[in-house]
């Protein structure tokens, strides 16, 4: 068989493809270098030996990775399970899951409320939701701290209303961190939920109601399955940054209630154990990736089989 001659059309397609690649190259280069470059450095550092005054010595060591789970007693040098580390991991996962659950519980009615407003006022409500983004995260977190501290707004109001007699001590606890993260990440839950509910055909509610479904059944069997992509997107947007949260636990949790983010920072700062910090960072990355894959698989299964 004779080779197929290249037509003008093929040539034109080839040229336009080349042009497209050329135009995309700067962006791709930035993405590849900025995303994978630092990651590679972190990966390499996790296999090195900690330097005396921070930084690393270029000697291969698995101590960084081992340090995640085991710790060497400073006095007798015996190895033991790093209970403190596990507590921090557990607290991070627990608080992130709780934050996701609470933002969903609070965000879903909010998103539903906004999506069912008349078109005109809807824009205003969405605008109000995005207002917190205008202020720096640190300032907002301190503001929340002011609200929930012993002599803060919340306690003052509750005491004035006679609901409590003694001020609640929420400050510098897991509860304070949870309140702070819920506040900070709530818009990230509301916005994707709103987008999903906005596309939801409200006529399906009548169809369900007509077919003998109770309100609860309509929510569970009609609304939730259909807006599931929004729930998944919102959960990812809240869970992932919650897991790596740094500012909120630092400000609201005091020094004690650390999360992974603070713990990693500690290794690069006072702890002077860069390989451990690097290994922890990589672990966090892997955990988040696994969580994402799990989400995506669940989402796809939902789309395939209902």
């Amino acid at each position, binding site marked *: 068989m004779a080779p197929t001659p290249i037509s003008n059309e093929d040539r034109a397609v080839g040229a336009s493809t080349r042009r497209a690649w050329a135009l995309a190259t700067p962006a791709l280069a930035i993405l590849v270098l900025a995303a994978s470059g630092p990651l590679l450095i972190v990966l390499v550092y996790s296999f090195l030996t900690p330097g005396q005054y921070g930084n690393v010595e270029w000697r291969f060591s698995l101590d960084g990775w081992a340090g995640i789970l085991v710790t060497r007693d400073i006095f007798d040098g015996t190895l033991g399970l790093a209970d403190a580390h596990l507590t921090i991991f557990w607290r991070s996962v627990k608080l992130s899951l709780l934050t996701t659950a609470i933002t969903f519980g609070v965000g879903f009615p909010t998103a539903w409320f906004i999506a069912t407003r008349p078109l005109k006022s809807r824009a205003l409500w969405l605008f109000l939701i995005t207002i917190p983004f205008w202020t720096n995260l640190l300032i907002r977190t301190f503001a929340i701290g002011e609200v929930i501290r012993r002599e803060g707004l919340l306690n003052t109001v509750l005491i004035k209303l006679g609901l409590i007699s003694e001020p609640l001590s929420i400050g510098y606890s897991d509860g304070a961190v949870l309140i702070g993260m819920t506040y900070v990440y709530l818009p990230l839950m509301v916005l994707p939920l709103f987008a999903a509910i906005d596309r939801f*055909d409200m*006529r*399906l509610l*009548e*169809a*369900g*109601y*007509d*077919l*003998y*479904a*109770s309100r609860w*059944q309509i929510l569970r*069997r*009609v609304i939730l*399955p*259909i807006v599931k992509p929004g729930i998944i997107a919102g959960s990812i947007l809240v869970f992932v940054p919650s897991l790596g949260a740094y500012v909120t636990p630092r400000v609201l949790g005091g020094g004690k209630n650390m999360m992974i983010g603070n713990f990693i920072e500690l290794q690069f700062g006072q702890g002077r154990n860069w390989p451990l910090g690097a290994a922890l960072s990589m672990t966090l990355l892997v955990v988040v990736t696994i969580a994402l894959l799990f989400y995506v698989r669940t989402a796809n299964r*939902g789309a395939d089989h*209902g």
Partner: protein
Amino acid sequence: MSEIAVEARSAVKTFGQGAAAVRALDDVSVQINKGEFFTLLGPSGCGKTTLLRLIAGFETPTSGQILLDGADITALPPNRRAVNTVFQSYALFPHLTVAQNIGFGLEMLGRPRAEIAATTERMLALVRMEEFAPRKIAQLSGGQQQRVALARALAPQPKVLLLDEPLSALDLKLRKEMQVELKRLQLETGITFVFVTHDQEEALTMSDRIGVMRAGRILQIGRPVEIYTRPANRFVAGFIGESNFLPATIDGGRLRLAAGTEIEADDLRGRHGAVTVTVRPEQVRMVAADAPGALPATIRAWVYFGTDTHCHLTLADGSAVVVRLASPASGDAGLQQGASVGLRFAPGAVQVLGD
């Protein structure tokens, strides 16, 4: 056989408050018999969909009652009424398969799995969609979605099936097919159908009885042939089919057209003085201008419709008359514009209209 399936008693529905209030239903009473195909016919905004939604339970009447099988259901929510709806938009669940959509109602009623599967199977067969059971709704054409919507609403065996302009989204050919299909389903299942439409042809071809609505009121209820041949008033006569309206006077039991000729009508309805009479275009015959007793008229225009041809004429007093003739084989009726002819009305075709 004339047991009442569903009934509205003095139903009033007002939307809005105060000066902006709209009376969508104005004291409507209607009784729909068991096993009947009842059509609510009227232009958009006449209140027919509101009446349907009152029966379904999506709206509560401002005053009046809704009865199902003799029991007052006015206060019951839709999920506690043995009534199902085929929605204009179909409103099928996009996340469920065809079979799951059809089984949804039974599932919500808590029926056993085996029963749900068997009924779903039967419904799929009834609407001839067996091979589509595992498909998602988005993979179906409009006509197929229509069938699924019907099967879904029929599966729980409602006492009354409500259909809200279900054919309006289909193209003409499919619509004609579905008209036949709907009638077949109604006969096979024996379920009472309440069908809402603004399409008079749909109403005439499918219904056992028609209720013609306008501005929140039912103007006339009757069998299609009654509604067509004996319209109660000018609106009904004009809305269903085409009609000629001629001014006339009744004096001493004699009916005289404003054009001067005395004509016969079956029923003068005890009227006296100035009235309007109506006669359908196909009930008018053209005869020679000098035929005895014929109404003199002048041809204005011919309009060719394929199966038939319309001839537009004017009478001596200037009133317009349309005559519908079967189109001649040659396609040419032979008479020219401006020609003088005589008109005769078929016996019993002239109706004196009420207000």
